[in-house]
């Protein structure tokens, strides 16, 4: 065998070590973006999560202005943190449609009584059916849906002060 051939394993290894070293220094994505971005919302109908408010179906997203779809739950702590920011978005004139995941009507009422109700309608996703279908990996998540019912943007985690501006921009883009 040629002497140079014995260097091939070392070369391959060094390439791997370099690559692995580079990858280790990269920030790790701990969020899994939904495969449903740029896709139309699936067909669904959710019962109201709360007496006195309408439920949610796909048809509610079609026509008019782009909307936000906020997935939350009364048992979720970050959802409390994002409540005032959702309130601000509502004040900006954004329509927010809520989906309460694995929740009870009393708990939903209690939560909204305490932290405010920015929603025009709230659907009850009792078995995380919609949540899984649109690729949400947890609560809270907020989606920008354009007036044709397509998912245009996904925000994973709670909505913060800086997210409000970002979401407003995304809503503008989705027009």
């Amino acid at each position: 065998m040629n002497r140079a051939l014995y260097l091939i394993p070392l070369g391959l290894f060094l390439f791997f070590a370099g690559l692995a070293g580079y990858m280790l220094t990269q920030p790790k994505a701990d969020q899994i973006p939904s495969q449903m971005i740029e896709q139309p919302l699936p067909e669904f109908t959710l019962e109201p999560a709360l007496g006195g408010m309408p439920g949610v179906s796909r048809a509610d997203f079609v026509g008019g202005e782009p909307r936000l779809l906020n997935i939350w739950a009364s048992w979720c702590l970050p959802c409390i943190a994002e409540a005032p920011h959702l309130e601000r978005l509502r004040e900006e004139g954004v329509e927010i449609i809520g989906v309460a995941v694995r929740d009870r009507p009393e708990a939903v009422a209690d939560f909204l009584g305490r932290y405010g109700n920015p929603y025009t309608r709230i659907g009850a996703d009792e078995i995380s059916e919609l949540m899984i279908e649109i690729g949400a990996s947890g609560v809270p998540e907020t989606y920008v849906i354009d007036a044709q019912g397509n998912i245009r943007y996904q925000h994973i985690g709670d909505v913060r002060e800086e997210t409000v501006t970002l979401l407003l921009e995304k809503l503008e883009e989705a027009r």
Partner: protein
Amino acid sequence: MIAELGLVALWLSAALAVLQMASGAMGLAGGYNARFAIYARPAAVVQAFLATLAFFLLLWAFAITDLSIKLVATNSHSAKPFIYKLTGTWGNHEGSMLLWVAVLALSGGLLAGLERRLPEKTMSATLGVQGFVALGFYAFLLLSSNPFERLPVPALEGSGLNPLLQDIGLAIHPPTLYVGYVGLSVAFSLCMGALITKQVTPDFAKVMRPWVLAAWVFLTFGITAGSYWAYYELGWGGWWFWDPVENASLMPWLAATALLHSVSVLAARDALRTWTIMLGVLAFSMSMLGTFLVRSGVLTSVHAFAVDPERGTFILILLGLYIGGALGVFALRAGSIAEGKRFSFTSREGALVFNNVMLSAILAIVLLGTLYPLLTEAFDVRVSVGPPYFNPAGAIFAIPMFLVMAVGPLLRWKDDKPARIQFELAMLAAVVIAVCALVAILGDYSILSVLGLALAIGLGIAAFLPLRGRNLRRVPTATWGMVMAHFGVAVALFGMACETAFTSEKLAAVAPGGVEEVAGWTIELESVDPVAGPNWTAVEARIFASRDGGERIELNPQARNFWSPPQATSESALVTRWDGQLYAVIGDQAGVDANGNMRWQLRVWWKPFVTFIWYGGLLIAFGGVLSIVGRIRVDLKRRNAKALGDARREDMDALTSGDLGTRGPVPEPAE
């Protein structure tokens, strides 16, 4: 006190590893310097004792749930069944690294204590390398993952163990794999020792062979157990996922399998010297790479283990030192090692080389598939590589490998004529073609599974052909080992092909009282009720299954929810018959039916001959055990014969004290 004692033992072991490394290296000075080299052996033996002691101290801390130790508090819980308290010792990063180091030190100690055949110079270099490898892992443990760290304030209660790991399969799976990985570290050290001193000889191969065999047996067993665990515990109905963590154990196995065959050629025929060394380096590299991939979190996997970039960096540095260093020495030295004896392509060696190349190609495919996502991620593209890549790409090399595997053991060493075994060849071809034709008539199945089935049957018959026309009582144990292992491959392949081709599946939403049919089985869901265990709650289904109107068997699959830490798992229920397994899983609620009864997702599979996959794996491991036993018996006989011969020679010399001419070597017992 336990934790402090353990830590002291670990630090002392590390110090001894330094001594062993230095002594081994200095022993090489000026040809061979016995004055320095004498410390290497005792250092390795004492180190083995201390590292094992450290591991047992941690085991003890887990047994009594000592919540003042951080590791125990974060991975155990007083409510946990006792057996899982013990297995919790290695069900976490720090504990499993300590187990790894303990096994490493133990095998180093065994090598130092028992091995007397190698030239002292090679032995010295080998122990030096072994000390160097151990030192890196001690540093890793002591500097970045101390298992004995105390909490400032003892915890009141522990936070549990990943419920997926609360299973007897996982109690035995990691330790067996680790023993396999670490056994390969000894092979690695031996290869480096022989390479450094340029003593790549058949004797060296004979010393290395039992280590490779033992490591390979443990890997085989570990992979088999792991696959069965994933099959019944994860509740997805499959037995191999090509997940990075699974590949991490498969890759060293592939390299070790190639090494095993190549080391046999070196031991028996003094051929394939550099190739054997290369495989020795490769096999351990794959063990370390596996550890890196699993522990560093550079790859996302369905098995979520301790993931930490800092630890990843540490292992990567170790990888660079050991593997980079070894490959560097290889590049420098390999040219000066003669290739050994020549042989023609149609010979036992030729067949073994062919299979070695095929195994290496499969290894390259698995490696590429495992690392590819890492490569594309560097360019910000996320991909996952799965069965559609691995199965056909692997099959391209596996199919010729199985064919040659069937006839290889029938060939003679050095040079042979294919015409000599034309009867066997014709018979094999006939079996393979007949099975293919039969299955093709029966139905529409994928080409790969039909070919797999035909090869499995052909290989199953061929495995026994080396015994044809021999006195079975005089066949060496090691040959029986080979026959068993090759038959095991056929059995496993048969199981895989049948499972892929003939599985029937039923996914239904069923309310209690509902009846479903799958492959001749009638499955009746009687009820779904809540149940509770020591640290979980679950819904449990009562299902009655009967086959063609026969006996009604009760099945109780569960969907469990553990509360500490919170996690949902699926406990499948299995009915095992000789010709396959019925596999049932209960899923989520699926709405209500017309009568207002709650419906449940029920998933049932009938998997013909699926158990053969694991029976095959066990047979392969058993073949390896037979082989080790056979080799050791031959070695002992040889040693006794030599001692007897030496004694006789001394007697003769004493008697005659005259020149009887040069004596021939003592005849070796036939293998």
